[in-house]
């Protein structure tokens, strides 16, 4: 599904270059559930942002469904992104001034989905995540776990093929974390959604099928999760 070839990300500061990512090569197939692990500052989030087209590599090639993302301009990247990718954040990143319903609606507005279809899709998802009663609440009125559920629902609303999750349970208590991870697992196994998550937690990594270990911007090792 996607392929990274010699991805580099560095910041030029005068004559010195500070590398965040160096010679990263990776291949992720459709339907996979991959975890990216590594210590703080190893470049996990940057890699995820590059995968999610929110950040650009300084060097290297990024192929997504056979298309050369590294050659795209912003508009075409956004189109590709709108069609295939959903993002879930550690800090949920719901828009504070919008209700649950409106938060779910926003990606559809950007995709110019007609009003009737918007309504039915949102209704479906609210139903699926048991949040119909909460649709008119603002994010601040929800618990962390509930906010993250909204975050996942929002990532799913556009029917993405790929979900990128940046420490999705980092701000949650263990029980809530487990529920969220179960949701991911179900999505991967039942709906065939490809998932890439960044995580610190070994327990969370066990939900996936493969783990990429990052160290100082390089992929240090790769591990297949044994069931």
């Amino acid at each position, binding site marked *: 599904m996607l392929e990274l070839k010699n991805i580099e990300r560095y910041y030029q500061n005068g004559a010195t270059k500070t590398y965040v990512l160096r010679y990263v090569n990776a291949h992720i197939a459709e339907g996979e559930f991959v975890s990216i692990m590594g210590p703080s500052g190893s470049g996990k*989030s*940057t890699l995820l*942002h590059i995968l*999610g087209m*929110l*950040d650009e590599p300084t060097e290297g090639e990024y192929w997504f469904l056979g298309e050369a993302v590294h050659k795209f301009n*912003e*508009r075409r990247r*956004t189109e590709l*992104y*709108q069609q295939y990718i959903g*993002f879930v*954040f550690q800090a949920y*990143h*719901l*828009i*504070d*001034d*919008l209700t649950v319903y*409106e938060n779910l*609606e*926003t*990606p559809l*507005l*950007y*995709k*110019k989905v007609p009003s009737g279809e918007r309504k039915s899709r949102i209704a479906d998802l609210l139903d699926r995540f048991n949040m119909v009663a909460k649709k008119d609440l603002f994010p601040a009125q929800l618990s962390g776990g509930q906010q993250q559920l909204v975050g996942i629902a*929002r990532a799913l609303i*556009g029917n993405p093929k790929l979900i990128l999750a940046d420490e999705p349970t980092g701000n949650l208590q263990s029980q809530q974390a487990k529920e969220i991870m179960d949701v991911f697992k179900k999505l991967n196994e039942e709906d065939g959604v490809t998932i890439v998550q960044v995580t610190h937690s070994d327990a969370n990594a066990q939900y996936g099928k493969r783990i990429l270990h990052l160290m100082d911007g390089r992929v240090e090792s790769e591990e297949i999760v044994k069931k």
Partner: protein
Amino acid sequence: MFNNYLLIAFRNLRKNSTYSLLNILGLGLSIACCIIIFLMLQYHLSFDAYHKRADRTVRVVTDVHMESITPFRGAPNPMSKALRTEFSFLENVAMYATRAEALISVPSASGIPDKYKEEDKFAFAEPELFDILDLPLLQGDAKALREPNTALITENLARKYYGTIDAVGKTFRYDNKVDFRVAGILRNLPANTDYNSEILASWASRASMSEYSPFMDNWGGMNGGTYCLAAFREGHHPSELEAAIPEFRKKYRHPESEMLFLYKPLPLTSIHLNSDYNTGMMKKSYLWALALIGVFLLITACVNFINMATAQALKRAREVGVRKSLGSTQGQLFWQFIFETALIVVAAVVIGMVMARIFLPYLNTWTKDQVELTGTDGKMLAVFLLALSVVIIFLAGAYPGLVQARFRPAVSLRGLAETKPAGGFSLRRMLVTTQFAISQILIIGAAVVTAQIEFARNADWGFRPGAVFTVPVPNTDHMKSLKQQIASIAGVKNVSLCYQPPASSSNNQNGVQFENRSQGEPWAVNFKPADADYLETFGLQLVAGRNVMPSDTVREYVVNETFVKKLNLAGPQEILNRSVNVDGTKGTIVGVVRDYHNWELSQDISAIAFSTNSFAYSNCAIELMPGNPAPVMAQIKQVWERNYPDYYYEHTFMDERMAQFLESESIIMNLIRIFAGIAIFIGCLGLYGLASFMILRKTKEIGIRKTLGASVPGILWLFGREYVRLIIVAAVIATPAAWWAMNAWLQEYAYRTTLGPGIFVFALAMTFVVALLTVGIQSAQAALANPVKSLNRE
């Protein structure tokens, strides 16, 4: 999509309601000022442009060529007749002679006529006027003006005099002398015309009145309010008339007068703002000043907006990141921010309209204009508002929108804005510098204007303007007994009969011939007929010789120092006992008075001659003893009304007259000062808001510095340094610009305040005060705060 934007915009505004309110009110105030300034500009630029033939109509004015050229707004009485016979390219020519005051008596059922004193409402006009200006009649016929003793009045006056507009055939008496028959009713006149007399009496009646008949064919002089209007035939141009004038004035001139009048056709629409040939208070330079302040207001408001929006952008950075991660394009984000700006601007425009509506009536009372909210043409205001909104939205919204839309989501999602928005920071500096520079220019401008007003107010006019007042002398029959009776009232110190007070808007300008010099002097003398008590009453000081002896005719003259100087005599003593011929009347010069200002301070003192001439007296000047004036003045009124039962009593104190001299100027100057003040205030609002955001951002830095041992003054300097630098850069830009502009303005005044360095230092100091108030206090609070608290907050 717009629903979503609207929701976010609205909830955002509500969340920061105080800040939003300040922002909207500040912007609304600027917009209100811009609307008012626009309407004033439109009003003054539209004067007399509505006439069908306005583009081919001129007023013939006169330049009086003596030792210097004096522009004069009038033309001699026979001008229209001569132009009509000489030039076939003129379609129509008409005289229009205004009277500053008219006493109108309307017969009433009780037998005692109702009396109205009408100021600037009465004019004599030739019937051709109706084929030049648009003066629609509701009833009657303009041709009736060919007959003597006919008049047209407006519907307003018809209602006022007769209670109905069906007033054709009714009569009134003018100045207790001449009866007029109403021959037609004029539709009410629009506000934007300088030809606004509401009573148009026939020119033929003027010709038959004894005080005018001798002068109807006189080319030797003219009255300021007597205008000659001419409409060219289609396809002809004023330059044709201009070219023909040299021949024309050789043919039509006063045989004895050596004065050369050069007549000039001025386009009708250009006259209103031409202060040389118009009496109105609005000048082009003031309109420019107002327009400039309007632009400054707009810039200030936009700078505020940009500063606040970019400062706030930090708060919005995360939202930008999230939206991008949800699939928003840069363009969509840009339009979202533009939309939010538009919402604020539209709210501000509505508030601005409301404010303008509230302020306009006060402004009109004050400036005596009739500026209406709909403008002279409602569409223009709508277009202006639309253009203004679009300009503000893009000026204020585009940059912050662009900056925010460009935030990279990978960075802004972490709650950080770009740490080093290199362009943004220097842009902000530039904006703040612009704002300081504008404030300084406005402060300097306002200070210079104030200095000039004070200079004029405190100027030594050279005579006593205080406890002296004048009452009118309607006719010469009773004036001597009036003077005696008033003089005998206890509490009256001096009484003088005279034509006009020492400084007046009514004047005689006459030719002078000194002794046996073969030619007249190349300058005119301001001739002031007055009795022997005049110098004493007005406190004019003799520097040589003596006062005139009492007389009813011209026998002796007292002149002023300028008169002596213009004759190139060595000193005042030289002129005593020599003879002079003023306007054909010989007399001996017996005294010289110290120079005083006989005009507004914008003009040079002219040569003046005083002499007894009881036929010319029209005022009685009275100086009171110190003490309570009220009972004395009541007695004076009684005495006056006993002598002149048919007339209107009114008194005018000299200081009121002086104030009137200054009034028109000071109104506009005050207006400019107020607008400048508002612009400065709005600038302060913006700086205050900006400073509070900057300080909020630096709270952590302050905390860290304090824990590292920084002193409070050290931290204050941290903020101050930046502003001090910007203010000094602004001063370098503002000072020369303001100096140049204000110096040019002051050149219009013959007597003016000096433009010393004090004013510029003052402006700089004021800017520092402004900065101190807006930035300093907040910085001090931040610097004094407990570092533990400010660090915890992070």
